[in-house]
């Protein structure tokens, strides 16, 4: 639990530092004020950096306090579910254009439903996957004129 509590502010500090360093690398403008494009990013990244440091100290003060959200997140089942969905999403991205919209969506939806809803409800899972894959395909490609692979 502790590392997430510290990790989040540290991540924010890193993001603001990245933007701050990046801001100084912005080339000078040839039009108008040469530093015009970098004022806004510099100001904001400094502000974000300061706030993130304050946030870090706030978290350090309450490091031992119980946080229900983190506990729920760190639950093995939850992590597995989120990880599974992400991996499935990556596979979906890779097969979407290759095997076409209908088949890839049917697989994506079907596998996710079976994982989440359980094998016992196989009938609902199959009916929902097929009908919703078809409805979205029909709605987008036929009614809205979106060209789908």
């Amino acid at each position, binding site marked *: 639990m502790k590392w997430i509590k510290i990790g989040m502010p540290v991540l924010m500090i890193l993001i603001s530092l990245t933007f701050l360093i990046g801001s100084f690398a912005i080339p000078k403008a040839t039009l108008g*004020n040469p530093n015009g*494009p970098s004022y806004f990013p510099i100001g904001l990244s400094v502000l974000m950096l300061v706030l993130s440091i304050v946030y870090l100290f706030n978290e350090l003060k309450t490091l031992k306090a119980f946080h229900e959200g983190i506990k729920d997140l760190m639950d093995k089942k939850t992590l597995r579910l989120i990880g599974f969905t992400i991996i499935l999403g990556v596979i979906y991205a890779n097969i979407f254009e290759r095997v076409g919209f209908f088949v890839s969506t049917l697989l994506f939806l079907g596998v996710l439903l079976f994982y989440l809803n359980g094998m016992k409800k196989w009938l609902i899972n199959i009916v929902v996957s097929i009908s919703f894959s078809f409805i979205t395909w029909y709605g987008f490609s036929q009614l809205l004129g979106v060209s789908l692979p």
Partner: protein
Amino acid sequence: MEGFMEGLLTAIEPINLFWIVLGGFLGTVVGMLPGLGPATAVAVLIPVTFGMDPTSAIILMAAIYYGAMYGGSRSSILLNTPGDGSAIAATFDGYPMAQKGQAGQAMAISAVASFIGGIIATFGFIFLAQPLANFALKFGPAEYFLLMLLTLSAIVSLSIGKMIKGFIAMCLGLLLSTVGIDPQTGIHRFTLDNPHLSEGIDFLIVIIGVYAIGEVFYNFLTINKEKKSQDKKSNMGKVWFSKEQWKRSKWPILRSAPLGFIVGVLPGAGGSIASMISYSTEKQISKKPDEFGKGAVEGLAAPESANNAASVGAMIPLLTMGIPGSGTTAVMLGALIMLGVRPGPMLFENDPGMIWGLINSMFIGNIVLVIINILLVGLLVKVLKTPAKVLYPLIIMLAFIGTYTLSYSTVDFYLLLIFGVIGLLMKVMDFPIAPLVLALIVGADMEQNFRMALVSSNGSVSIFFSSWISVVLLILTVLSLFYPLIMKLFLNKKSAN
């Protein structure tokens, strides 16, 4: 009057009537389902609006928004679980009413209260929008910049107890909005020589990522914890209220509508705050304050009227100034920009048909919704039992397809997942999401206005103090920053008394 009739004709076109009914129904459903709100619904449906006429698109999105205000209280009353933030106040007295066997009456009074709130607010819209648009014509770049600053600081400081995190989210949103080619000088910023990044980060992907994927991931945290015992026999009783109940609710409803409307118009505040203020106001002026929280019918009616009125009011700054005051209206702005519509004072000059079409659609939509929410109560209760485990995969699927229609590229699927995880982490760590999204959408405009103001004054910051409008906006911004402190002092004093 001419505009009104023209708008009425637009709104009753069959296709628009279809969008009103569909939007209202969908809004009711997502409003009802715990964990999903109007912002998620609009975000998921953004791709559907692409092929649409902009007027139909705004009619649909608005219907989802106020539909969610009707729906939110269904689950507050029946399950003691608010569908979204604006429905929290409805649990205070709505659920106790249901426990007393008055669920049907609670459903009916809340639908009627929402209806009256919505209609009164639509009249408010007619009277306030045009003058506000005319007033906004006086705004120069400096005033616009300050107005955006005020909106952002208000939305952060109203997320009480999360101010630091809110400002971090805001800074992050603003920084992300600077990625890409600077429109004033053509200089590449933070693009890492990647052509995909030179067009900037597509805010619609961020919106769909945090509001659809992030929300579903967040709901995964509790998906296996749901109590099974909630499947009580839904003994609704009669779905209408008694004369006595109406007598008690009448004035609270009528008082809360203008209150909610004004709160909705204010930057940063929305339905959640409107309903809370109206609840506590009614409790304070009630002759029977002890009955509040134990099933007082006016304690349910008042916030329901207020939150629906607020959702109508929130449309005003969006359309007259192009500045959204809440998460949902920010998402709506994103969709409108995609459709090539730039909301702002000129919209009233250039496209009055759109505004009047929207106004009329809100009258019709509220009538449709009160009917749906009273007559179809049985169906809605069934929908409420839809297993979340079936619903969430569908939302994720729609989010992916919506993203695909934005750029016809599956590369964005990865971005979508990344922002989904960012949204999840922010929710877990109690970061408010709205400041991030709002900042990302108004960020580019905010910076351009800031720099244009400085160019016009030859670099002198005095431009930000030069008009009375600027000064007022600055004072309000400072006040909004100290608002949490002021509230704390006020509450301490009150408890000391």
